[in-house]
């Protein structure tokens, strides 16, 4: 069961953002280049731009930012814009029953 070439998986290539498949190395590069917030990391790497809009990965990125000296208080909250879940465009249009304004 034991084997000497275990752990060959390089942690750097671990995917952090599962939707856009952004690796740890890519996020670390953005941070080393001065990205200090979730939004800055997102713009530099696309992490958090996919179908889940960062719901799954953002806490891991917050931890990486914190390790780089940025407290979660400043770094931790992504800008959230509607829709908070993917929605068909026809539902945005409001259809027949739309009554806002």
């Amino acid at each position: 069961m034991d084997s000497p070439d275990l752990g060959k998986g390089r942690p750097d290539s671990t995917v952090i953002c599962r939707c856009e498949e952004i690796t740890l190395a890519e996020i670390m590069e953005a941070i080393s280049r001065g990205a200090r917030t979730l939004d800055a990391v997102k713009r530099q790497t696309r992490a958090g731009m996919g179908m889940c809009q960062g719901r799954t990965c953002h806490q891991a990125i917050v931890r990486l930012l914190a390790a780089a000296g940025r407290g979660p208080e400043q770094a931790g909250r992504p800008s959230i814009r509607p829709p908070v879940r993917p929605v068909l465009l026809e539902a945005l249009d409001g259809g027949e029953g739309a009554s806002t304004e």
Partner: protein
Amino acid sequence: MRVDLAVVGAGPAGLSAAVAAREKGINVIVIDEGLEPGGRLLSQVHVDPSKPVTERIWIGRTVASSLVRRAEKLGVRLMMATTVWGLFRSGELWSVMLNSGGPSEVLARAVLIATGSAEQPLPVPGWTLPGVITAGAAQVMVNQWRVRPGHRAFIVGMDPLAFATVHGLTMAGVRVLGIANPPPGVPAGDQGVPREVLGRLADLSHLAPSVLMRLGGPVSRSRAVARLACALYVRPVLRVWGAAVMLRHAVVEVEGDAEVSHVVLSPQRPDGTVAGGIRQRVPVDTVCLAGGLAPLTELAAVAGCKFTYLPELGGHVPLHGPFGQTTLPGIFVAGNVTGVESAPVVAEQGGLAGQAIGLLLNGESRDTVEAATAAAGVRVCRARDQASLRFLPGVVEGRRAMEHAWKRGHWDGVTAP
């Protein structure tokens, strides 16, 4: 469609709130994207041997069914399989935007956000392989879908949800080989540090008294003792429901081609670093990641609620007052969205918020509402004291800090439209 109160989330908080608000005579709708009402209750089963015999087994679905029956009997409308994608102010009302085939929005005088929490990531190398699921997903699969995710499972991360998952999988006939720490390093936080883990096990000792009590009980009393115990503790001989509890090992990688085939374990030092020793490859077809929970606050954010950062409650949470009122008139929060706690506490919180919203919408004064909800407040605290599961060790301090933050912000005037 126009209602008095729209509740987003049909979990223990949302359903309890809906019942309490409806009892005050107001018109309530509950919206949830799940296929049936109950939220996470539907997948929760706990055994607490420290409780009296009649209370030892706690089945979430039973709790959910009774809440749903009460809600339906009172005339609460339940709108399932419906996703809320936005929350916008619409004059004096709130537009709750829906993606269902039915109405595209609900106009409400008040909205209760009871969206619960989300599992946090544990990015182990290989965690994207099919067969790697979250601890919560494992419970949904075996307890709600009634489908085994595989035959041989390994759990990564040691927290209440992880041990509940060991139990749930075992009950469903899945062989759980072991439970170990996540890989050390930043993405997983301190969840991969054995001495931090050991300190937290105290909160779980009642769930598996025979083993964890012996270890976690005395150890929990001080951090220094925990550190010492961790240094002394070497051999992974503990078993919980047949699964090896590997306190000093980390899963450093998940292997597989098209799907999971092995986990790779490495021994750890007490500070979490991987010791040089021999690695083990354990053949498994299922890996469950227990990364902990954090409030799911997106809707409060898009509505425009102010937030405050309280790690004791799970991170950034909407600033809220004693009834769950937020910094926006008409928007309320209850349940895990305000801080992660177990279902019985959450249900009491929901009840309090629902009662308060009902009274406020009926035009009662703030003082009246405060007096009327005093008993509910006591019930919340009692539920917290008696909780079998405590997800966040500092939750009481966190709640207190929120009270202060609310008062400091002078938000007391905010109630309902």
